[in-house]
């Protein structure tokens, strides 16, 4: 019995929800296959695909050598030929070895071919910091990918999105990148059995509020929600928006929120300069300028490669206290 048949709310983790989504995709479409380093026998470097090799066999759950450029490119080729590959890259840091394939092939083949070709490929990878993994394992580069026309970028931050975003990604005729923040895998909670699909195209208001809009995504969402809790005790009602899709951005949800609250803080674990937070802020300035009662604030990572030492890493990353302080800056 698949989890979609279960009627009671189900206790699960982000990791298990993601695995269930993969299982469902492999079951329901024989064009779908999973490919990447250690996705099979090892079960995925973060355990997401554990058990899938045993269930679907090595043709559909394919371990690859350490060859990011080759297996991502092969995923592109297989997608061109009508398959629906799901390629896992261990972390966004290693995706840079495949950046050429993602940008120069996946994102551009449709356009360069005058619309003849399509690359219905899904690429999943871990992103983010917070586990003292230092400067080659901790960066948040999803904003770079969100810069590229021709691809869609998703950032599931909730159990529900981990469980239900994948079908929309697989239905997309174009490449979709899915970023899973490493700190979310162990998040557990209940998955409502009534929800069977999600609308992946729109940002979500995770917590309604009236005084200020906290706009974020991915691993920063739990921090923004914690900040909203804390602010509520001080009488400030913060609305928390999860962007969910980083490209194309659902700008309407953001501007209509700002039109109601008149204040905004954008929280993004990437570096501030040239970030997604910069894009969101610019769009607010363009389209909601006259609704604002205060300048837009941004809470981003410090402009430093993420350091190993715990106190430095903590100081480098957006924390709940920083969000609370930014809100006070905008409200007071």
């Amino acid at each position, binding site marked *: 019995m698949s989890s979609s048949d279960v009627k009671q709310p189900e206790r699960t983790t982000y990791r298990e929800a993601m695995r269930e989504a993969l299982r469902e995709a492999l079951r329901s479409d024989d064009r779908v296959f999973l490919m990447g*380093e*250690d996705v099979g*026998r*090892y*079960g995925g*470097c973060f355990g997401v695909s554990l058990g899938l090799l045993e269930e679907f066999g090595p043709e559909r759950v394919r*371990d*690859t*050598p*350490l*060859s*990011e*450029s*080759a297996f991502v490119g092969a995923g592109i080729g297989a997608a061109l030929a009508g398959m629906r590959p799901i390629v896992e890259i261990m972390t966004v*840091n*290693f995706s840079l*070895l495949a950046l050429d394939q993602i940008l120069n092939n996946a994102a551009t083949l449709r356009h360069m071919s005058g619309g003849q070709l399509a690359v219905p490929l899904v690429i999943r990878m871990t992103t983010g910091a917070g*586990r*003292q*993994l*230092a*400067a*080659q*394992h901790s960066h948040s580069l999803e904003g770079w990918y969100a810069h590229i026309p021709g691809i869609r970028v998703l950032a599931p931050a909730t159990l529900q999105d981990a469980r239900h975003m994948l079908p929309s990604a697989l239905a997309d005729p174009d490449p979709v990148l899915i970023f899973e923040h490493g700190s979310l895998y162990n998040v557990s909670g209940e998955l409502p059995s009534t929800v069977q699909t999600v609308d992946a195209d729109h940002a979500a208001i995770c917590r309604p509020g009236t005084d200020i809009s906290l706009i974020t995504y991915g691993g920063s969402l739990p921090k923004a929600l914690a900040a909203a809790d804390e602010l509520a005790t001080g009488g400030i009602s913060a609305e928390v928006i999860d962007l969910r899709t980083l490209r194309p951005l659902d700008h309407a949800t953001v501007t209509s929120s700002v039109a109601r609250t008149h204040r905004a803080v954008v929280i993004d674990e990437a570096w501030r300069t040239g970030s997604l937070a910069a894009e969101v802020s610019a769009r607010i300035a363009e389209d909601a300028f006259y609704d604002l009662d205060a300048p837009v604030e941004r809470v981003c990572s*410090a*402009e*430093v*490669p993420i*350091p*190993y*030492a*715990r*106190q*430095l890493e*903590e*100081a*480098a990353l957006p924390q709940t206290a920083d969000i609370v302080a930014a809100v006070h800056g905008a409200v007071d």
Partner: protein
Amino acid sequence: MSVARPSRTRKTPAPSKSGRKPTSSKDEASARPPSAHGTAGHRKDLLQAMLRVRRFEERCVELYSAAKIRGFVHLYIGEEAVAVGVNEYLTPDDAVVSTYREHGHALARGIPAEAVMAEMYGRTTGCSGGRGGSMHLFDAARRFYGGNAIVAGGLPLAAGLALADRMRGQERVTCCFFGDGAFAEGEFHETANLAALGQLPVLFICENNLYAMGTALERHEAQTDLAMRSASYGMIAWAVDGMDVEAVEQATRKAVEGIRAGTGPDLLEMRTYRFRAHSMYDPDRYRHKAEVERWKERDPILLLAERMRDNGELDDKELARTERRIGREVDHAVEAAEQGPQEPVDHLLHHVTGSSAGTVGRP
């Protein structure tokens, strides 16, 4: 244009004539009087150097469990003969480029245990000032260019270091460590070609421990004869018993002599094995216990100790003294790390560019 050299593999390292080059730095706690290679005294030094790496890392395991050390930690236990044997033929002028599994390379190179331990504690007294952690040990003075945690990421750097030496006419060797997994990355193949084409003085040391994380060699390489493939690039390459520190040493001598003489890069495929999981994160479910146990019978430390015992060179009392001395050195490293200062968070933006505060890095 450089002249292509014939590809060839050597099955066994040929014996060599020349004497040894000065090696360990004075900071190495095992500061040892030079004793000629192949002698009883020398074997004692090698045993001690391997034991030192082993005991250091065993302490790391405890400290990781106690959450004193964080992040990803990759142990070298089982592979000590490679770092120790290779180091015997590197001089302080040579350069070393390493991976995330580099505690052994760093200690053999002469980075004090104290500085390595403090790095894992994230203290300012660490060899990377606490910025790097276990995967990013650096020591510019000892020409130890890191601690690279992108598989194959260090290889091109090694070619560049060697290129600079070559352009300036400096007779130095750049030694580059990497794993069997790196063989699948384009960066390995691009660098092998580049280095062979330019006859660059690089000593490539492939630590073939038969696994890239959970993927066995025969499941990640279509052709598992790594030395043969390396030779196809026009380098001299051969496989070495990486569990036998004296074999490692002799092969390195042979390779380094050629490289110093200007014949271009060599690659040694060190056949070795890691006794522990890939990292402290790894549940190690992809290989059989029996396989690990079989390899443990060829533990490089036991292997050398047995040889010495057979030769009547092993003095148990002396060995016990050595163990105690190493134990004290590791204790001391831990104590110093415990007391090492934490960097204040207002230093966060140090060391980002040459104009950042705190930085000493100059071209």
